[in-house]
């Protein structure tokens, strides 16, 4: 390996991560942008080693992205994101028999929430509920702290939330809208029993982050190869489908403002 090779970090939240990055590595090589990857078991370690300069680029969750920015005093480079990462929302879903007709009605009820490091299923929905005047102290939180360190990537805690609302352990729950819409489209949700009750303001999700001193030639090669992936090319499409997007988008920062706020004023 020469030092021309871009070293990319990703978190192995699922076995398919190997398939995804093997495929992307091969594709990058064909695009004359040699790349290799390192898999981490959690985002904290990945951020730590990015900051130490052991890897060039990290494929980060919003939480990891904001932490990298904080640690670099906002000098880190954001390189790209998935189309499906933009305008994410979280949903409050409720049981139809829970007599909840306003957000204040959540007080005194059990609210199922996802992992404590999940942006979409814990941090932001609770932050937004508090902003709407809901007293979180008066809500009984049913916490599904599964896959901590993976920042909610596995979606396991969100499926736990939906299951808890469906079987009555909770009267309401919070999930990301990706899971909510996809679970509905797949026919997995009994919409007579569970309904979407409230939608949070939008926020953005994952991002490729690099340190400010990363070789500009590597940055250029990375962007050229990344944005060269096309849905209508079968070999690309397989990778895009696995990674859950149709088009790679340029980065934007406005989608992380609410998360920065939430981290400055933590919720339960």
């Amino acid at each position, binding site marked *: 390996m020469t030092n021309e090779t871009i070293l990319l970090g990703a978190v192995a939240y699922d076995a398919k991560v190997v398939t995804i990055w093997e495929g992307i590595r091969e594709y990058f090589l064909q695009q004359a942008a040699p790349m290799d990857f390192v898999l981490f078991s959690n985002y904290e370690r990945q951020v730590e080693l990015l900051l130490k300069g052991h890897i060039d680029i990290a494929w980060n969750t919003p939480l990891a992205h904001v932490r990298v920015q904080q640690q670099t005093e906002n000098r880190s480079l954001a390189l790209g994101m998935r189309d499906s990462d933009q305008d994410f929302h979280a949903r409050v879903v409720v049981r139809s028999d829970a007599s909840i007709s306003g957000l204040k009605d959540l007080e005194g009820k059990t609210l199922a929430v996802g992992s404590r490091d999940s942006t979409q299923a814990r941090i932001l929905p609770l932050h937004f509920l508090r902003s709407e005047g809901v007293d979180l102290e008066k809500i009984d939180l049913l916490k599904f702290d599964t896959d901590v360190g993976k920042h909610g990537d596995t979606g396991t805690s969100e499926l736990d939330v939906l299951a808890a609302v469906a079987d009555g352990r909770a009267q309401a729950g919070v999930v990301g809208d990706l899971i909510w819409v996809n679970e*509905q489209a797949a026919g*997995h949700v009994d919409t007579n029993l569970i309904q979407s009750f409230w939608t949070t303001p939008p926020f953005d999700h994952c991002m490729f982050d690099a340190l400010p001193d990363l070789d500009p030639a590597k940055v250029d090669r990375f962007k050229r190869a990344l944005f060269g992936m096309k*849905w209508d090319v079968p070999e690309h499409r397989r990778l895009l489908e696995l990674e859950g997007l149709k088009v790679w988008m340029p980065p934007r920062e406005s989608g992380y403002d609410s998360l920065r706020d939430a981290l400055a004023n933590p919720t339960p």
Partner: protein
Amino acid sequence: MRYENAALAIDGGDLPLGGGLLALIRPALDLLEPGGTLAVNSLNQALRDDLPRWCQLQHHEYLERQQTAQDYDRHMIARGALSLPQGQREHGIALPQHDGQISAADVLKSVPMPEHADPASGFAPRGARVEPGGPRYPFTLLDRDRVAPPEIAKLYDQAVAAQWNANTDIPWHKTPKLPPEIERAIGQVFTFLAENELSALYLPSKFVSRIHPAYAETAMFLSTQMADEARHMDVFLKRARAGGGGLGVSSATTSQSLLSLLELEDFTEAAFLLSVLGEGTFLDLLSFIEAHAPDEVTAEVVRRARGDEARHVHFGLVHVRHALAHDATLYTRLEAAVRKRAAMLANVGGAPAPLQDGLTVLAAGSIDTKAIARGHEAFRELLDTMHASRVKRLKHAGFTNEQAETLSDLHTPNFM
């Protein structure tokens, strides 16, 4: 902003996104060209957030929500261009019926085969629109004129109509008590037939998975051919054992000959060697057995099998003729294939000895020496008949008299 020219509108009632509404939205969007607009009228308020997100994930454009009558939302969606299925939508195809029947030949007439096929369309049936981005399939038979003669659907219809049952369509109850030497001859002859039919089942199966589904009728016909061969093997082995004769010997000559058939890798060469030359020769063999059959069961077994084999020979002939008409180099290749096979079988003498003996005794009807002499003569005449029929068939396929004589002489002494 108004969308007066919305191409389609659907009434979603109060259905939520996950409550069946997508079964209305997705087919409606499928009817639109990219950019065409769909109006979804809905009473369901959760759609205000769910529908824009779903559109984003599916790369349709959520245009806006309009307020119509009380509580009614009108969601305007523009169909996106990503993963737009390729090809023309089928419309106006109402398959013709004849006496209440719809034949495969009628279907083929309504949905003709393309000249070339795209391996990335996978198992999509001919006429279906295909989403882009599918993987390439390992189909190698991608040209109509090498795969599908125009008569193929008609041959398939005939094959389906002519299927019979080896269990119930043979008068097994009429199996006679024959002298042991005759039963043993029958056992030997049917052992040979069954062995050859098994090879005729395996060889087409090699090619079915190489045929592009745009030419599915050829695969469908081959599947009937394989079903025929399976039934023949079944019925032949039953006859070999029904009277107590039991199975005979599988000769090395037969084994060598059938391996050289099974190892063929070119579809047209295989159709030529198996169906035109091999099964063609078998027609005369089956006629011979029927003519000399000592009992009704034997006669009925080979008579029925011969009817099926004639269809396979017909397929081989039209396939080769059609391919010859579209490929000037094919004559040379087919001749080379026959010569190559003959070279592989160079050390083989005449027809397998156990078969010669079985046919001779069968034709003799007894082991009386005078009868055996007659049986031997009949067998020698059979070889001449086979040669003459092969030459006729080869000429019919498009070879000159001289080529036909040469190729027939080079044909395997194993008959198949």
